[in-house]
């Protein structure tokens, strides 16, 4: 069976050396004096984020060597395509200075094309944008989109506004115009100018923070539907990477129930909220929920009622990696085909030997 991994984290071997050539002179000077770091969320994993066993032979950060990543992950598991989602970069949207964030995003994408996408045709890129300046983000999307190796737009899920709001619509307009999905990835909640990871405040530790980041995705999906983003941009697809899945039936049911009584506030919606979610939202699997009874996860998938919504992801080389040979073993074979490659092939326009594309 073909295999597409929708969340693979390439990392910098040396962020300043890699990005500096692509920064305007002013920001080169800034980087030379102050470094490149994006604002941290501040939560520290006791096992680290990068897998110890995934370090390249050079001893650098896991995921920082394209050839090693290709051998260690793609070759080992027979992965046809990996969608690269970056490391230590999504915080560009949380800098207090949006121009610095946008300059870093552009430099990252330029470096990604040369250092990664040129290296292997199995690697596909995400256009990292700074969502705190949507006009600049739209320009960056337009700049990168002609290179079809970029298959989606990617932004950190931490923000100080909900993603459905009109402030962000230039991003969706640009992505739609170029036929690119827009993805979010957690990790920047509470960083820099992003609001606290929960509306009730900051979790105490990494474990607690990691447990609760899906609520942020719920908030964004809710906002995107209610603000009419999928009516305004009917071609748009939105991917919530690494945000979990099991919460979705609850959100769909609650939104539909409220819509039946309160639709007068959102007259631009013409269908039940869950119908927009099924058509426009995609979720990645890792970290797969592992209920005591594996059949319960299958029931959740059935409740969502949409096998086309879910994409396999491993999160290589992060600590909570899902092994494609072990994860989701209980799924029926037709769902496996959709989840392990066909959905991603359709979403990202990937040619696979048996996909007929």
């Amino acid at each position, binding site marked *: 069976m073909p295999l597409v991994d929708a969340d693979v984290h390439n990392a910098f071997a040396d962020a300043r050396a890699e990005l500096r050539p692509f920064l305007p002179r002013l920001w080169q000077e800034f980087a030379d004096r102050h470094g490149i770091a994006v604002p941290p969320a501040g939560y520290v994993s006791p096992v680290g984020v990068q897998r110890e066993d995934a370090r390249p032979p050079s001893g650098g950060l896991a995921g920082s060597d394209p050839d090693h990543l290709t051998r260690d992950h793609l070759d080992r598991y027979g992965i046809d395509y990996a969608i690269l989602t970056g490391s230590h970069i999504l915080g560009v949207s949380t800098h207090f200075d949006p121009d610095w964030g946008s300059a870093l995003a552009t430099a990252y994408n330029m470096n990604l094309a040369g250092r990664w996408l040129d290296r292997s045709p199995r690697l596909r890129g995400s256009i990292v944008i700074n969502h705190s300046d949507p006009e600049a983000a739209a320009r960056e999307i337009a700049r990168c989109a002609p290179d079809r190796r970029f298959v989606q737009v990617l932004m950190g899920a931490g923000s100080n506004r909900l993603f459905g709001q*009109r402030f962000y619509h230039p991003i969706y307009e640009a992505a739609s115009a170029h036929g690119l999905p827009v993805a979010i990835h957690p990790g920047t909640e509470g960083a820099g100018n992003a609001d606290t990871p929960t509306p009730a405040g900051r979790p105490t530790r990494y474990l607690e923070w990691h447990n609760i980041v899906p609520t942020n995705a719920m908030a964004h999906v809710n906002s995107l539907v209610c*603000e*009419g*983003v999928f*009516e*305004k941009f009917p071609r748009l697809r939105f991917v919530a990477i690494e945000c979990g899945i099991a919460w979705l039936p609850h959100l769909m049911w609650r939104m539909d129930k409220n*819509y*039946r*009584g*309160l*639709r*007068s*506030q959102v*007259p*631009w919606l*013409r269908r*039940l909220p869950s119908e927009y979610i099924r058509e426009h939202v995609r979720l990645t699997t890792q970290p797969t929920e592992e209920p005591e009874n594996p059949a319960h996860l299958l029931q959740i998938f059935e409740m969502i009622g949409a096998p086309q919504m879910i994409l396999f992801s491993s999160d290589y080389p992060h600590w909570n990696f899902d092994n494609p040979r072990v994860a989701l073993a209980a799924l029926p074979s037709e769902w496996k085909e959709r989840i392990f490659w066909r959905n991603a092939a359709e979403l990202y326009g990937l040619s696979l030997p048996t996909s007929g594309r």
Partner: protein
Amino acid sequence: MKRHPVARAGEITPGGRKIVSAGSVEIGLFNVGGEVRAYRNSCPHQGGPVCLGRISGTSMPSRVYEYIYGMEGRILRCPWHGWEFDLATGGHVVDPDVRLKGVPVETAGLERLPLEQRDGVVYVLLPG
């Protein structure tokens, strides 16, 4: 069907209503564009007293961030959960297949005058 006299036509003013009982059945009478409409006072959703809800218009289908107010005086919103019903048809605005339970009405008197000027009796028709 049995005819129950339940109101004088002039009591049901435009945008107003009258709640009546016929036998053991509670019914809401509404004046919709000069015609009497009668519905059982029980919401098809959870049995709430739908006929006691607010009568209003609503926001019509529109483009994103556009607000078009319409159906003024034709929307009845159940006080439980806020479901909107079109008083002209009894249909739920979200799902027109979900309907208020209509009750047939007969208005005696001068049919060509506006309802509130008529002196006739409003009858509802119920089985039995």
